[in-house]
């Protein structure tokens, strides 16, 4: 009956066996078709690092600066990871920055003013995030106010709440050892190595088990060489990063030794793994993509669209809470500007630069981490070059616009080539 290419019957025989060349070609044709994914972020990262490395070889390339990048970018990256969920539905959360500020203020009040232990404060902060997210989500999904307006109102209101919580302009210091450690201390070098090894072994196990399972069932797989390349790539990147982070970076070793992986790195890594698992391997994650791709189709498939819409705001605000905790830890205090000024736009920028679409339906949690790295490198490198804050804002704004243009253009290209 069919006019198009006809191959043998049966599930396994539909496509020829995979080869590395074929894999590379199909990837390239996807890119040409407008599905660029994280490619711009990775290329941007390489270009930026090269430029700064040439301009400021001694300071930018130092081990100390490399560790700084992680602690500088951590809060924005964590907020961006939550924003990815909201962006996947084609919604926006403009209040995420100040939501993180509110949660940080709650943390500081509970631990410093009220004197509770650190874990109570952390729970209170995250619970505040959940509460904020639930309210935003209900307003968007149940009442039907556009998320742009709801979260813009939240942006203003939360700014006020931060002011109220920190008593009009004073700041509350955070002195708890555990909380301060999150963004200021490092893992023992041996622990860094063990975690990296664990990550590589775990990743390899997951990849190889999936490969074996699919081969056993006669399904199409990526070529084993590509699988091996991925595992090897992760091992090399993690190994190099841990090696550099484990170098001594103290100016004076006699006074204090400073080496090891910053504690925020495993925090981000664990959250990255958890959220990636949720998005890629659970039906909840599948439903998020479905609602983002075609809400009506999702509804007809029996997916509770409203519940999904509320839940992404809860995830976003909770991740903002964690970002706020890290920010409070890094500054050792909470002031009226925590989570303010450029934090939100950097976070949205990070998600979009990493390849998450503003139109919904496309994006990964990893995008936020890659984009967060780009933002952190710009901030850090321009600081080292001695540019003023004004120039940094302008450059970051331009990069965000560039990323959004890549998103819009690739979408148009995809529509033209019929791959979207």
């Amino acid at each position, binding site marked *: 009956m069919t006019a198009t290419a006809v191959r043998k019957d049966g599930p396994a025989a*539909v*496509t020829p066996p995979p080869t590395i060349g074929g894999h590379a070609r199909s990837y390239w044709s996807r890119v040409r078709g407008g599905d660029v994914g994280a490619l711009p972020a990775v290329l941007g990262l390489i270009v930026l690092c090269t430029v700064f490395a040439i301009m400021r070889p001694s300071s930018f390339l130092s081990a100390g600066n490399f560790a700084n990048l992680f602690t500088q970018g951590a809060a924005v990256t964590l907020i961006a990871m939550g924003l990815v969920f909201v962006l996947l539905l084609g919604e926006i959360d403009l209040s995420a920055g100040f939501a993180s500020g509110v949660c940080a203020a709650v943390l500081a009040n509970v631990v410093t003013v009220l004197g509770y232990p650190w874990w109570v404060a952390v729970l209170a902060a995250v619970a505040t995030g959940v509460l904020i997210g639930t309210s935003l989500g209900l307003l968007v999904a149940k009442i039907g106010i556009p998320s742009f307006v709801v979260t813009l109102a939240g942006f203003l209101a939360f700014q006020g709440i931060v002011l109220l919580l920190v008593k009009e302009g004073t700041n509350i210091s955070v002195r708890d050892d555990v909380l301060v450690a999150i963004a200021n201390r490092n893992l023992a070098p041996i622990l860094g190595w063990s975690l990296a090894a664990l990550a590589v072994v775990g990743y390899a196990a997951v990849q190889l088990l999936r490969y074996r399972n699919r081969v056993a069932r006669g399904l199409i797989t990526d070529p084993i060489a590509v699988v091996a390349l991925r595992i090897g790539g992760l091992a090399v990147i993690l190994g190099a990063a841990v090696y550099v982070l484990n170098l001594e970076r103290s100016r004076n070793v006699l006074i204090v030794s400073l080496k090891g992986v910053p504690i925020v790195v495993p925090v981000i890594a664990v959250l990255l793994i958890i959220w990636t698992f949720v998005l890629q391997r*659970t039906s909840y994650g599948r439903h998020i993509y*479905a609602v983002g791709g*075609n809400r009506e*189709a999702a509804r007809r498939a*029996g997916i509770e669209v409203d519940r999904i819409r509320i839940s992404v705001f809860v995830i976003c605000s909770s991740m903002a809470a964690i970002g706020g905790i890290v920010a409070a830890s890094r500054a050792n205090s909470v002031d009226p500007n925590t989570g303010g000024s450029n934090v939100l736009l950097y976070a949205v920028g990070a998600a979009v630069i990493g390849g998450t679409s503003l139109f919904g339906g496309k994006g990964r949690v990893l995008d936020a981490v890659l984009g967060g790295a780009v933002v952190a490198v710009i901030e850090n490198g321009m600081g080292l070059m001695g540019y003023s804050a004004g120039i940094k804002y302008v450059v970051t704004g331009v990069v965000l616009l560039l990323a959004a243009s890549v998103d819009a253009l690739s979408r148009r290209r995809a529509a033209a080539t019929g791959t*979207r």
Partner: protein
Amino acid sequence: MSATPLLELRGIDKSFGPVQVLRDVALTVHPGEVTALVGDNGAGKSTLVKCISGIHPTDAGEFLFNGEPVHIGSPRDAAALGIEVVYQDLALCDNLDIVQNMFLGRERRSGIVLDEPTMEQLAAETLAGLSIRTVTSLRQHVSSLSGGQRQTVAIAKAVLWNSKLVILDEPTAALGVAQTAQVLELVRRLADNGLAVVLISHNMNDVFAVSDRIAALYLGQMVAQVKTTDITHAQVVELITAGRSGGLGLATDPSSNGDGAQPADSTSGGLR
């Protein structure tokens, strides 16, 4: 005629506020047959389908499924009975691949993890069972498929669930000639596999090409339900546009005659 109809509707009424959209509608659908539901725009075809699939509640009337009275109050009830609807606007998610779309909302899991290999195998088996060979990879995004391929996926999705009744809302409306032929052949194959198929179409060629029975709606009334072999092209067009054709359909002067009883008569009587 086969013994028990799979689905039988009797005296279905449906109003939206003051507008009565369906009036005393009766319909029988038999397994292994394609029943074409025809009618002009606004005749109530889509409303009838939405009543069957549980999207709209009915005001009056009864549903018999396999001879048993049933209540369809929600899309879930319809799905539980094995009724699947393939909508005109497809209801596929462009950003998901074929397997993901086919299992959307009913994913297979092992524990909390999606069981991708099993879903991929089942999808492949379903497509092979319908002799669908036009898609190269089950993992390609639906956005990269042609209109005919999308329609094929949408239909295969409906078949995947051991459905007994598949309702197709204008499956060929947006398709070219070759693709239309493909989809019609698929529709025929569904019926040959023993499913009951309801096909909504404006295209008389399609209707006569695949249907076993034709049910004609005119202004919310079922004016005739007859075998395709017993009726001509022109008669169907007359039924659609005027509500009657010769001895079929509404009485000659619907304004003077009580038009409620007449269509019900002709529905049960019809031509044999």
